[in-house]
């Protein structure tokens, strides 16, 4: 092992939001000049097709990797895993969006999950940083430098890595382009191409218990089973745009739609989007998660010219709710609501 170079890949936003674009550019500008760091830009990794240059590049990186993306780190990590880019989850000091300062970092909590885990993990670290969390490019650049320093001094045993020879075959060509920016005009080159905004589930195998409820529930053939009888997203393009129904059905909250607006579905740490505030959605007519999932599925079935099935097919049978909490005095309740200063 001659080097502990770290590769940083920035996965661009789909959005035209100038503030987001500016943050990307500022980070890119800073990192292109940073010694010891290989830097590349791709379109939103979620949108890349198999065989795309961006994915080929990511696959060619066998050393430590930092991915900057506009997604929850959990979503980004398992999105990479889905594309064969895996490694141990590195711990970042940065928060993801919505994480409070006084909360513990998400990493430790993940140990509580009893998922089947990923397969054939490369012995390296992958750090996913959430670009939605800070406006200041400097915060990311500093954290990247910290991680780069950290992994180089730790001398992590990088057995299992087929790195240098592989890397040398595939990477220099790409990097020549970065190192000679004057030939290419201003700014970094974007590796890969996103033709469409895609939509499909990503499985978090640290949580997935292989219960197969999703395969029973989805009537569009998105899910399948691999040769080890593990659940996988087999036909991702069968998935119906905007429909996150299987994610609601999953008892472990292991199915992520990285671009969904609901944090719990988009891969936020923890169980749900609740936080400290109470959720009155049920009072305002929200169906239960299962009802909601069936409704979303029906809408897609009808669009496909098939019959709606409601709750008749593929609905998991589980024990319903815990025992209701003890009745309490109304005034006390309202007082407590009032004292919940937020």
């Amino acid at each position: 092992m001659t080097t502990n170079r770290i590769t940083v890949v920035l996965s661009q936003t789909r959005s035209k939001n100038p503030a987001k674009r500016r943050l990307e550019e500022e980070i890119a500008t800073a990192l292109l000049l940073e010694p010891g760091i290989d830097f590349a830009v791709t379109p939103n990794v979620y949108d890349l097709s198999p065989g795309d240059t961006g994915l080929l590049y990511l696959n060619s990186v066998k050393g430590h990797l930092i991915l900057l993306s506009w997604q929850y780190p959990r979503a980004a990590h398992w999105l990479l895993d889905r594309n064969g880019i895996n490694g141990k989850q590195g711990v970042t000091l940065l928060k993801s969006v919505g994480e409070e300062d006084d909360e513990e970092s998400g990493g430790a909590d993940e140990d509580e999950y009893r998922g089947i885990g990923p397969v054939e993990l490369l012995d390296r670290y992958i750090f996913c940083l959430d670009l939605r969390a800070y406006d200041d490019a400097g915060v990311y650049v500093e954290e990247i430098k910290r991680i780069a320093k950290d992994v180089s001094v730790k001398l992590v045993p990088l057995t299992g890595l087929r790195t240098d020879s592989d890397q040398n075959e595939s990477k220099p060509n790409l990097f020549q382009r970065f190192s000679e920016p004057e030939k290419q005009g201003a700014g970094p080159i974007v590796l890969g191409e996103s033709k469409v905004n895609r939509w499909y589930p990503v499985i978090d195998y640290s949580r997935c218990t292989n219960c197969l409820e999703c395969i029973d529930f989805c009537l569009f053939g998105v899910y399948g089973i691999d040769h080890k009888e593990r659940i996988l997203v087999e036909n991702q393009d069968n998935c119906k745009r905007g429909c996150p129904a299987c994610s609601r059905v999953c008892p472990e909250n292991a199915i992520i739609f990285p671009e969904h607006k609901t944090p719990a579905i988009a891969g936020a740490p923890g169980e749900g989007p609740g936080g400290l505030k109470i959720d009155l959605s049920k009072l305002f007519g929200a169906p239960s998660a299962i009802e909601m999932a069936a409704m979303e599925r029906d809408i897609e079935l009808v669009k496909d010219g098939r019959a709606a099935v409601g709750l008749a097919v593929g609905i998991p049978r589980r024990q319903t709710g815990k025992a209701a909490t003890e009745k309490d005095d109304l005034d006390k309740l309202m007082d407590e609501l009032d004292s919940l200063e937020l």
Partner: protein
Amino acid sequence: MGLAAQKHVIVIRNHFLVELMSDHFIFLMGKYEAQVPKDRLYAPNHMWFRAEGGAYRVGFTAFAVRLLQDVYFLDWNVEPGDVVVAKQEIGEVESSKAVSTLHAPTDGTLIRFNRELMKDPTAINVDNYGAGWLFDFDPKDALLLSAEDYIRRLEGTWDETQRQIKGQMND
């Protein structure tokens, strides 16, 4: 004049007051008196419906607003003209006490949203039965509740509602 000047209050069970000759019912949430005007109809998801030009104007009831308290943010994820089904998610609300999704009260067509609330949602707190209306809606074969039916429903579900809220706060 005699009767109208007097205030006859009848208490039914614990939380439900009827003022004779008044234009509204009152539902007691602790000491808070949530008014339920008699001049309109209601959906079980705590929205009022007032007939207006062949459709209905819809807003939050005082009961809903009391639970929400100060509304900070309101967002819709359907468009004017969209056909929606009952319980379909149509938007979200964030307030000082709660963050919640909002759902279609019945099957129907969403005609327009109250654009003033997009700039500043405080009208929901200041005047929930008037300027704080949420949207105009054309319900499809909907069975809406009278003010009396709605308040009886509140009465019937209040204990459960408290348990739900309480349960979340104990998490």
